[in-house]
């Protein structure tokens, strides 16, 4: 970690609302620029935008367990490169984050090696087995203060287990984040969106309804238990419809969409390049359109990268065997800008809501997702909205190279990331 410490005066930055301001960072907080002493280190932000530090609701850091694919150090460095000041470390580690001790260990790795804040996500069930509840309450009470629980990678498919989990976490205001995949409709071999493409390519299909039937069940269980459900990586038009319905009924449901489900579509798998194997799979254009619209109108209230680094040897297999998952942290903002902002679907204040405020509220992380105002934590992402570049997988700060945007020309917005007043990335 090579943080720049000390005070910093950022001058002439444009905020998401269009106003221009100076930002004075002192002791990890935003202070009155007028109080900046002469000689304070300055950063000229003319032509740049200052956004509250981005928060990723869904990150796989792979440590402990698969340090050859990613570590807290490299994963959070990639996060800082992408403009993030906070990530949520998913629980499918080795060992699984299903005890207070495991949660505190991941938390300590974040404190020691993190280039951004690491919020720990706990497993819903022991060993992600889908049967017995993890020590949800002990994780909540631990130093990691876990509020989000998820068996992500696997679906809590048993309705009764799901009901119990939703009910149990109410006493500490937890939320269950579900990987919605009916394990019978989309079994272990399912590796391609069920469509004309899966049919032609001879790949086992993963119908969009394998997601939406679980979403439909879960929102009703959330209603039954009056508890909070979060739908991870929403990828289908049907799920969006169910979520709209649930919200109309006042059900406490939040949702996220990944950058790749906003931009990348099923035909990319036609060459059997396993970089494009991901779960849920890349969907067809009508689904992309549906999740874009839902992100714009707030049906989907946040972006979560589902950053999933994999070592080369886990991807160099036949398509049905290779591990699913792709990188996302470094290009997340670029993709959201390209798909949502540059097309006029979403304005900057909404982007800030989706990529900073909403994910911080989701996990009750008070240090993140705050406006750039005096007294607030100095978590700032400086953005050049006009910069563009061709993505090079080799240039990544991640330890892995399964970058689906490699070779694509995209915005390259992040100029600097500041977390707790320290510069964690600077171009």
């Amino acid at each position, binding site marked *: 970690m090579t943080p720049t410490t000390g005070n910093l005066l950022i001058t002439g930055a444009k905020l998401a609302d269009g106003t221009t301001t100076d930002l004075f960072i002192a002791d990890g907080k935003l202070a009155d620029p007028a109080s900046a002493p002469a000689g304070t280190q300055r950063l000229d932000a003319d032509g740049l935008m200052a956004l509250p530090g981005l928060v990723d609701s869904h990150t796989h850091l792979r440590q402990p367990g698969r340090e050859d694919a990613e570590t807290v150090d490299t994963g959070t460095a990639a996060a800082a490169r992408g403009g993030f000041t906070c990530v949520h470390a998913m629980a499918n580690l080795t060992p699984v984050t299903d005890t207070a001790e495991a949660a505190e260990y991941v938390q300590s790795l974040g404190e020691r090696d993190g280039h951004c804040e690491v919020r720990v996500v706990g497993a819903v069930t022991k060993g992600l087995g889908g049967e017995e509840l993890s020590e949800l309450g002990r994780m909540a009470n631990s130093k990691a203060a876990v509020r989000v629980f998820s068996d992500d990678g696997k679906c809590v498919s048993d309705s009764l287990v799901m009901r119990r989990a939703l009910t149990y976490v109410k006493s500490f205001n937890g939320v269950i984040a579900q990987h919605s995949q009916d394990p019978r409709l989309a079994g272990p071999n399912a590796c391609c969106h069920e469509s004309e493409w*899966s049919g032609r*390519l001879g790949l086992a299909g993963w119908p969009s309804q394998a997601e939406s039937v679980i979403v439909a069940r879960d929102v009703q269980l959330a209603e039954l238990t009056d508890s909070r459900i979060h739908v991870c990586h929403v990828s289908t038009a049907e799920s969006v419809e169910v979520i709209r319905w649930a919200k109309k009924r006042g059900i406490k449901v939040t949702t996220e969409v990944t950058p790749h489900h906003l931009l990348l579509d099923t035909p990319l798998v036609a060459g059997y390049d396993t970089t494009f194997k991901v779960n849920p799979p890349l969907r067809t254009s009508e689904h992309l359109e549906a999740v874009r619209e839902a992100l714009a109108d707030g049906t989907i209230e946040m972006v979560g990268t589902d950053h999933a680094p994999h070592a080369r040897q886990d991807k160099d297999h036949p398509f049905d065997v290779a591990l699913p998952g792709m990188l996302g942290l470094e290009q997340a903002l670029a993709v959201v800008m390209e798909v949502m902002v540059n097309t006029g679907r979403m304005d900057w204040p909404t982007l800030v809501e989706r990529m900073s405020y909403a994910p911080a509220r989701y996990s009750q992380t008070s240090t993140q997702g705050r406006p750039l105002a005096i007294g607030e934590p100095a978590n700032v992402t400086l953005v050049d909205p006009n910069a563009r570049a061709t993505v090079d997988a080799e240039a990544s700060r991640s330890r892995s190279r399964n970058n689906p945007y490699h070779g694509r020309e995209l915005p390259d917005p992040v100029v600097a990331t500041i977390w707790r007043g320290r510069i964690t990335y600077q171009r």
Partner: protein
Amino acid sequence: MRHLLSCADLDLASTNAILDLAEEMQQVQSRSVKKLPALRGRTVVNIFFEDSTRTRTSFEIAGKWLSADTINVSAKGSSVSKGESLRDTMLTLDAMGVDAFVIRHASSGAAAQVASWVKAQVINAGDGQHEHPTQALLDAFSMRQHFRRIGAEGFAGKKVAIVGDVLHSRVARSNVLLQQILGSDVVLVAPPTLVPTGVNEWDCEVTGDFDTVLPEADIVMMLRVQRERMAGGFFPTEREYTERYGLTPERLAKMKPGAAICHPGPMNRGVEISSAAADAANSLVLEQVAAGVAIRMSVLYHLLGSEEGALR
């Protein structure tokens, strides 16, 4: 043409060139000395990650009759279980100076992936549920000979019924593509649970009603149905499958005069095809096997045979 991975790699000219050369190659088969010097000094590795008797043997014979050094590698069992990735396995063999790989793999897309990694040329000998292009070529070869025998040359306007488990069949996918190139009308006949998603985009007719299609078909191609499909809930019982989709003696009698029967093998006699049909005078089953060697000689020659490559 550098690789043969899919029938989509072919057009009418290249298909006819392969079929025509296969006819010449077939004449070699009837000689007492069958060896041609065409691929002398070239090395062809048949790497089969999945069991196969007829395909592997016919590729091996084809290579040998063309004087290529043909090596069989049985790589059964997933590379994952050996702790080696498919890419590493193939790069290892490629580094030995192989000219061509003939690859069979249980995973769809494996041949295309390998082609993107290795320097050698790649022939897809069946990849999962995706394609099996040389099977479609030998089917077309047998059909062409049959049409000629009955004095009805040409594929245009011919109705080819492909019957059975289309969903899991690489033979069906390759045949649909190749028969479209040749100009015949393909009808897929399958229980609705064994029809691939998006088949309406394939530019062929799809039906669950075998008995309506049967009397109009010039070729009836029966696909092997695997017993595990029953356990997978795709159809209730073997008996019901046979009753609705089997080429029974009763259905055999209803075939159009001059129509022929194909089956890629191995056959489940009594399930998708009755013995009466398998052994009928109009069954092309053994002819297909014989054609397999000639077609694979032709494909090997076209890909490897000259500096230019006849179909490049």
